[in-house]
């Protein structure tokens, strides 16, 4: 009796820990079985590249959600940084490297602004980022005069490399996604910042009482989210050859979906970037396999919603 109880417990623990990964494995095997086109190196690399932009944004979003916050402005920041970089390259006469740093800096700054208003103004993150989502989108339209800033042939080769290039067989956006992911995993597991992020999300009041500078670390987290979005934005304009103010409409929801599927709790304190990584890949494979099977687009949206609910049910610990 006792023994079987122990095994049950172990199985339960493995299930709790790895159910998202199991979900991915099941989806992967299933996809390979139903479509001959799925399990080819080129298709899988395509899927990973398709996942990269959302994946990078979602990793940043994970930090924010771990502190029990939310960042709705990511899609707008994506557009603003894209327009800014394209504009500076096209009309500013700047070289690629300065533009890259200005772009990343702008993303960081916009994130920092979110963090400052949230902490110093003591306003809920949902409201602050809802407001900045609208304002930053407006700013992007204003900056681009509502027209796409077309780089076309003028796209610097380095930017093209970041969006479309390969290192060996691996697309560069995938490498950037992996780098951002590994860096974030390291931060969350091995650094003070990581520990404090979990502490703040777990119980903000307790974290404050134990001497953590909660406001400071929250600002850092929102800045990080802005910075990661800027990285995604550089990839996006490298791929598209255009900076457009309508870039990334609704991307905040895709990123939140990846985070939630990955098992991170919207209440904060619980979750990992590994989960988010898998969540983003699941969304990518799902979209790919449904396209490969020729499932109509309206059904696809219904199914995606269904997957989110199922994933959350699976990852719910201890009912």
């Amino acid at each position: 009796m006792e023994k079987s109880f122990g095994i049950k417990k172990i199985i339960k623990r493995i299930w709790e820990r790895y159910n998202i990964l199991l979900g991915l494995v099941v989806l992967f095997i299933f996809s390979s079985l139903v479509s001959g086109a799925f399990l080819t190196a080129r298709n899988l690399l395509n899927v990973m590249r398709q996942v990269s932009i959302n994946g990078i944004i979602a990793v940043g979003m994970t930090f924010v959600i771990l502190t029990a916050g939310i960042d709705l402005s990511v899609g707008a920041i994506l557009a603003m940084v894209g327009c800014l970089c394209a504009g500076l390259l096209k009309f500013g006469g700047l070289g690629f490297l300065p533009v890259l740093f200005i772009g990343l800096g702008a993303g960081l700054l916009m994130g920092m602004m979110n963090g400052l208003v949230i902490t110093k103004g003591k306003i809920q993150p949902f409201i602050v980022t809802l407001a900045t989502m609208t304002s930053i989108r407006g700013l992007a339209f204003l900056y681009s005069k509502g027209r796409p800033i077309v780089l076309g042939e003028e796209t610097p080769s380095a930017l093209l490399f970041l969006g479309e290039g390969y290192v060996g067989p691996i697309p560069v956006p995938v490498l950037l996604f992996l780098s951002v992911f590994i860096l974030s995993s390291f931060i969350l597991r091995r650094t003070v910042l990581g520990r404090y992020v979990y502490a703040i999300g777990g119980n903000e009041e307790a974290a404050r009482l134990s001497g953590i500078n909660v406001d400071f670390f929250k600002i850092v987290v929102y800045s990080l989210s802005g910075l990661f979005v800027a990285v995604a934005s550089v990839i996006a304009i490298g791929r598209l050859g255009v900076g457009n103010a309508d870039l990334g409409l609704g991307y905040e929801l895709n990123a939140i979906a990846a985070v939630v599927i990955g098992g991170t709790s919207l209440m904060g304190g619980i979750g990992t970037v590994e989960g988010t990584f898998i969540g983003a890949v699941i969304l990518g494979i799902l979209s790919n396999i449904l396209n490969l099977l020729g499932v109509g687009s309206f059904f696809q949206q219904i199914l995606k919603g269904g997957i989110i609910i199922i994933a959350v049910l699976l990852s719910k610990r201890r009912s």
Partner: protein
Amino acid sequence: MLKKVFLFKGILISFFLVGLIVFSSCQKAEKKKILIGFSQSTMIDPWRINMLEQMKDAVKEHEGEIDFVFTDGQNDNIKQISDVEDLFSRGIDLLIISPREAEPLTSVIERVFKAGIPVITLDRNITSDSYTCFIGASNFRIGEGAGRLMTSLLEKGGQVIEIEGILGATPTIDRSDGFHSVIDSIPGIQVIGKQPADYLREPALKIMEDFLQSQPRIDGVYAHNDEMALGALTALKAEDREGVVVIGIDGQKEAFESIMAGKLSATFIYPNGSAQAIEIALKILKGEKVPKNIELKSQMVNKSNVHLFYKPDSYF
């Protein structure tokens, strides 16, 4: 308790997987037929849904020859790029695509084209010549037509409101530029207000209400599509402003009805070319030569000729 939860989850997942299998088996293609993939840029817009529906009708006429799959770019360039990659992975014989925007989609279309898959670009073209055939109407020319019509209907000059589509989108830019290329050189006519309503009726209604509050005199409204023109008409009617010239674009059924009722002044049919695309696709796959560019003619519709175009049972 735990067991029950597990059971529930298990049932849920099985349902999902069974559903997927059913879907996939429904969609299974027989090897002999040609597989045509259509990448639509968005399905929010009734005009684009109509494009797809008419294409499906055209496919039905060749049921024995063609298998047809389509994807929905959900109004997002990056999503549409992924769609094209997925269609390519699926092994389509020919790609029909209505790109959401020219520049961003060019590179992926080039890749498909260079891999030997013929490409028909529909409604909007790409920036390189890596396509087999482009079918579309000129938004710029339609804008010019609307400009000329406005000029002739406002003989004594007047003040005009322009309701724009989605900011930054190519058709918006072309419909606006074409209109202004005519109207800006006419001294008596001024565009006194310009606001985007995203090709949707309800925002257009609100914008028009605001203009009616702020502008004592409005003689003409140029809307970038019929939906918005109809929205503007609703606002005009509520304020009892009569004799305002309202011009739309697209030629949807409701616009024709409005013309017949004497409300909408005119519209320009914006043809979607989907039936032509299927015909051209078959020709290409049979090895026949096709022209590189096919410009679809637009047609101005007003009270004098509306009966020729009105079909009560059309989708759109």
